[in-house]
């Protein structure tokens, strides 16, 4: 069976994929009563959305490249994720590798950890204690394996050791919609534990109190410090009692600090919309329910905290100045009286409790004004907005992350639970940026294939491209914006190369492939009878490159595999291809922002190319004109010479017979070694030289054999001449030999190459070096190749 996208050329820049298990179904022809035009007519009507033609797609079909992933329970993903108390997040398999390395003589256990891993994955439905889950899974595996007594003992003993070595408080997170908030809150909460603000505040208060307590003691001694200083002289150091206003300020500062110390703020405030009310938050966090006003509540929560912390940070700054004896009333009074969050340093923001708002993308869209307020403000509030419409056919979907990027000053990402390393990196970078942060988290988990495959299909099919915008990274787009972790970012769609039935096949993964995974969108795909081939059918990735006019006459299809591995063509309805175009447009926009296929660069290249082309064309014309003139001149001279000589012969004139062909055409037949063409004057001189040679027989070097040259079009590219001397003989762009530099070798080599050449297209001419030995013999040999 052949198909239009079966390719036989060397494919570049694509990635190989194992398509084992796939095959073309036997070509059994069209169903009886159907002709190819009938099939294509129905397909066109289906594509156009004619409701009378219904989808006939088998329910077991998957995009061909996903055939091997048909059983999600047999796929090792990065999940469950292990959240360690130290804040570290790692895949279970990596956690096992690290932990098993510390347990000695654990071969039976380590060999079976893959089974434990699988058992954990199958049993884990929500966030749970790691030791408990792993211990339970281990027991089940032990029971299932029914090992002999010794092995069973080893397995269980070492298993218990493994469980004991899991740090208390370690939790496991499954690949479900809870993963995004769980991972983010875990990382943020762990980061707040490094916050030692309270200790610093207490130290500061104590120092202030100590300073303040020294004052009454001095006064009680009855000694006037200022008078004492007068007596002792200005050069003598000594303390001066604080003035009344300063004492008052210090006391007020202590009071402010102590007031703050009586409060017990949580290190983390998690504001949740109704959508996220059920999420679990870390023990140390305070949950704030926001109902439908997620962003407003987040602002409110943050501002309340900021107001309180403004008093503290103001007091701390005052204390620091006082302790350093650097407080200057006229300068600092005004500054500290109006101290608010806008005056906070990054370090002070960092010391504040964190405010994280968790909701859905819909929550963000419903509160656009307040969302925008957060993103353009200096409030380092973190927004986690979960999206589950990965393969929607909504043309008007608002890309919140893209919208957030337009605010320029905020940290914005599009992440996915299906790519946890990107998720973790983004969360950490968001914290480090100390800016308003928006993470839109793709987290659909209702698909039968599971959240991992669904999420990754959305990434592969550009339905949900990952992006990260971090203004902290620099001033240019190249520094701030990246598409890292998207597959094959240089392409419109990821392209995979594999073999089916010994035929190379190039398979893309488009939005349509992603859409066909969604049950309620499968009605937009129609399975064609096996064996249908027509120039009216085009793989969808190629079809999408056609203009709207061109695509009107051709039908897009994609390859899908059934449970047995047979692959079939599915025609894609226009309602899906329209979204494909929209997704491609969005992806191309992101590519440009990331510097991939940037249109400005392409334009600049095109403009530069046109300038160069024009210049080259002009130069070509000039040279051609000059060449034509020279040719015409030569032709005229040659015919004059020929006529003159002919006249001399016929009239019996002196000078003897001169072959007019040799004398007139020599400059054109035998190219001069340096590539120039003999001018008419030179031709005349050669005639004169030849005439004079009859009177002066002395050998002048090349003599009458002319110069070496190769009849390049006859060259068979055998390498024989290059084996003789690769400096003299080189290939031209047609890979046929020519003489690049005759002086780079000896005459002997030239003759030997001529003798070796099977095409006999090398003409060695005469020797360049008259002192080379055996010239007489060599010239004799060379004479055979004139």
């Amino acid at each position: 069976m052949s198909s239009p996208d079966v390719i036989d050329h060397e494919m570049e820049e694509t990635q190989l994929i194992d398509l084992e298990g796939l095959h073309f179904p036997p070509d059994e022809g069209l169903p009886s009563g159907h002709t190819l035009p009938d099939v294509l007519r129905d397909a066109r009507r289906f594509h156009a959305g004619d409701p009378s033609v219904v989808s006939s797609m088998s329910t077991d079909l998957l995009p061909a490249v996903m055939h091997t992933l048909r059983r999600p329970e047999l796929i090792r993903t990065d999940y469950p994720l292990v959240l360690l108390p130290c804040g570290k997040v790692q895949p279970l398999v990596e956690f096992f590798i690290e932990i098993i390395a510390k347990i000695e003589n654990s071969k039976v256990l380590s060999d079976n950890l893959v089974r434990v891993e699988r058992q954990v994955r199958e049993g884990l439905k929500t966030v749970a204690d790691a030791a408990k889950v792993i211990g339970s899974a281990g027991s089940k595996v032990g029971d299932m394996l029914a090992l002999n007594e010794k092995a069973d003992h080893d397995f269980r003993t070492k298993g218990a050791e493994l469980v004991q070595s899991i740090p208390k408080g370690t939790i496991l997170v499954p690949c479900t919609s809870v993963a995004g908030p769980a991972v983010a809150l875990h990382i943020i909460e762990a980061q707040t534990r490094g916050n030692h603000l309270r200790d610093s505040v207490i130290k500061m208060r104590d120092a202030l109190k100590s300073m303040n307590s020294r004052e009454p003691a001095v006064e009680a001694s009855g000694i006037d410090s200022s008078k004492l200083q007068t007596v002792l002289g200005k050069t003598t150091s000594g303390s001066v009692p604080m003035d009344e206003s300063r004492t008052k300020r210090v006391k007020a500062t202590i009071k402010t600090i102590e007031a703050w110390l009586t409060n017990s703020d949580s290190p983390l405030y998690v504001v949740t919309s109704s959508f996220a009310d059920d999420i679990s938050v870390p023990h140390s966090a305070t949950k704030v329910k926001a109902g439908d006003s997620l962003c407003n509540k987040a602002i409110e929560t943050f501002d309340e905290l900021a107001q309180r912390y403004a008093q503290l940070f103001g007091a701390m700054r005052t204390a620091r100045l006082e302790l350093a004896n650097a407080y200057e009333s006229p300068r600092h009074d005004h500054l500290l009286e109006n101290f608010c969050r806008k005056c906070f340093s990054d370090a002070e923001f960092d010391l504040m409790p964190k405010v994280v708002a968790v909701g859905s993308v819909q929550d963000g869209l419903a509160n656009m004004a307040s969302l925008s307020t957060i993103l353009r403000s200096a409030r380092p509030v973190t927004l986690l907005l979960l999206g589950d419409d990965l393969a929607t056919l909504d043309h008007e979907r608002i890309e919140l992350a893209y919208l957030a990027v337009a605010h320029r000053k905020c940290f914005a990402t599009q992440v996915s639970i299906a790519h946890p390393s990107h998720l973790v990196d983004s969360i950490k970078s968001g914290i480090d940026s100390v800016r308003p942060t928006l993470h839109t988290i793709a987290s659909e988990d209702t698909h039968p294939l599971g959240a991992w495959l669904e999420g990754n299909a959305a990434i592969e099919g550009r339905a949900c491209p990952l992006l990260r915008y971090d203004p902290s990274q620099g001033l240019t787009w190249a520094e701030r914006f990246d598409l890292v972790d998207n597959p094959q970012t240089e392409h419109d769609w990821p392209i995979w190369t594999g073999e089916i039935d010994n035929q190379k096949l190039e398979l893309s993964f488009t939005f349509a492939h992603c859409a066909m995974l969604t049950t309620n969108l499968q009605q937009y795909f129609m399975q064609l009878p096996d064996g249908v081939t027509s120039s009216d059918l085009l793989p969808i990735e190629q079809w999408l490159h056609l203009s709207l006019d061109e695509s009107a006459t051709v039908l897009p299809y994609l390859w899908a595999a059934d449970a047995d591995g047979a692959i079939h063509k599915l025609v894609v309805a226009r309602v899906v291809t329209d979204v494909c175009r929209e997704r491609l447009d969005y992806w191309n926009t992101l590519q440009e922002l990331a510097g991939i296929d940037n249109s400005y660069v392409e334009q600049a290249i095109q403009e530069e190319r046109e300038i160069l082309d024009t210049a080259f064309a002009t130069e070509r014309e000039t040279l051609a004109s000059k060449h034509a003139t020279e040719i015409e001149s030569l032709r005229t001279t040659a015919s004059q010479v020929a006529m003159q000589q002919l006249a001399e012969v016929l009239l019996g004139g002196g000078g003897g017979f001169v072959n007019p062909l040799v004398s007139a055409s020599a400059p054109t037949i035998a190219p001069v070694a340096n590539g120039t063409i003999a001018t008419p004057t030179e031709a005349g001189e050669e005639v004169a030289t030849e005439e004079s040679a009859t009177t002066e027989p002395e050998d002048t070097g090349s003599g009458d054999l002319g110069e070496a040259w190769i009849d390049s079009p006859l060259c068979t590219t055998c390498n024989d001449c290059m084996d003789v001397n690769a400096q003299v003989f080189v290939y031209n762009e047609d890979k046929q030999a020519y003489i690049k530099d005759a002086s780079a070798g000896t005459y002997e080599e030239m003759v030997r190459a001529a003798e070796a050449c099977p095409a006999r297209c090398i003409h060695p001419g005469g020797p360049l070096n008259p002192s080379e030995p055996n010239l007489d013999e060599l010239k004799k040999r060379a004479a055979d190749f004139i």
Partner: protein
Amino acid sequence: MFGLKQDWSLDVLPRYFTLDDYESSVPRWCAGCGDHGILTTVQRICRDKQLLPEKTVCVSGIGCSSRFPHYMSTYGFHGLHGRAFPVACGIKSRRPDLDVWVATGDGDCCSIGAGHWVHAVRYNMDMVAILFDNNVYALTKKQSSPTSQIGQSTNTHPKGAPLPPLNPSTTTLSITNCSFVAQTVDWNPVHMHETLKAAHEHKGFSFVRIFQRCPVFSEECFAEAQTDPDLVQLVEHDNGLQVSESGTRIYKNRRTHDPSDLVQAMAVSNQTDVLPIGLLYQNETMPIYNEYSSVGINSTPEDKINALNHQLDRFAI
């Protein structure tokens, strides 16, 4: 692709086998017999590869080494003298899904079983044939075998075997369709493990000659080589066996040999002053007979009748 790493498959059996699971009764070989080490090595390979015991078959003929199947907790067939190969070929022919190991001695294989040996090599069925070469008939108390050395005193030749020994490796190499020949010594388990592992991974008939000590009836045969590593020649190549340093560091006498070179393989294995160990020859392109003999094994009687009818219907009388 799809965020998956190379080791993405969790398609594992719900069973796990330890070394014990491949052990059967206690071997009754003499103390110090090289057969013990060979047995353990095979069991380790089975364990490491988690071969299903019920899908593994050990076949043997007659001799000390041919007790091998008794000590493996897999399926086994202790055959007649010299008849290990026809039985093994019969098994593989119709059950290509089984892992077949053949244990045969220098007498069993190279004398009475020589005819079957030749054809088993030519059939090139996917199995591992281990030749336990101790240069003597030991089970029957020391008679000369085809590989007995000149002058080796046995009960059949008390004054010493008069003929030069048959070389099983050169013989195997000379047989049409030969695809894998290696040699190792039973006293170097590291090397032996890698040799047998490579043999098992080879697609086709893997012939491994193991120089095997018999401490009772032919002790003198390999005693010197065991104590003087220079009498062993390590055959190595990038395409050969990759044995860890621990198994090779004692060998100073080394020879580079490309295992795709059949002529040189003959020269290497034909040396008489040293024991060459390593991969002598490998060619995975040779036809494998069980791929032909097993065609249609899943056909039902109805399938066969239908196929027959289909063919007969093409003829008109």
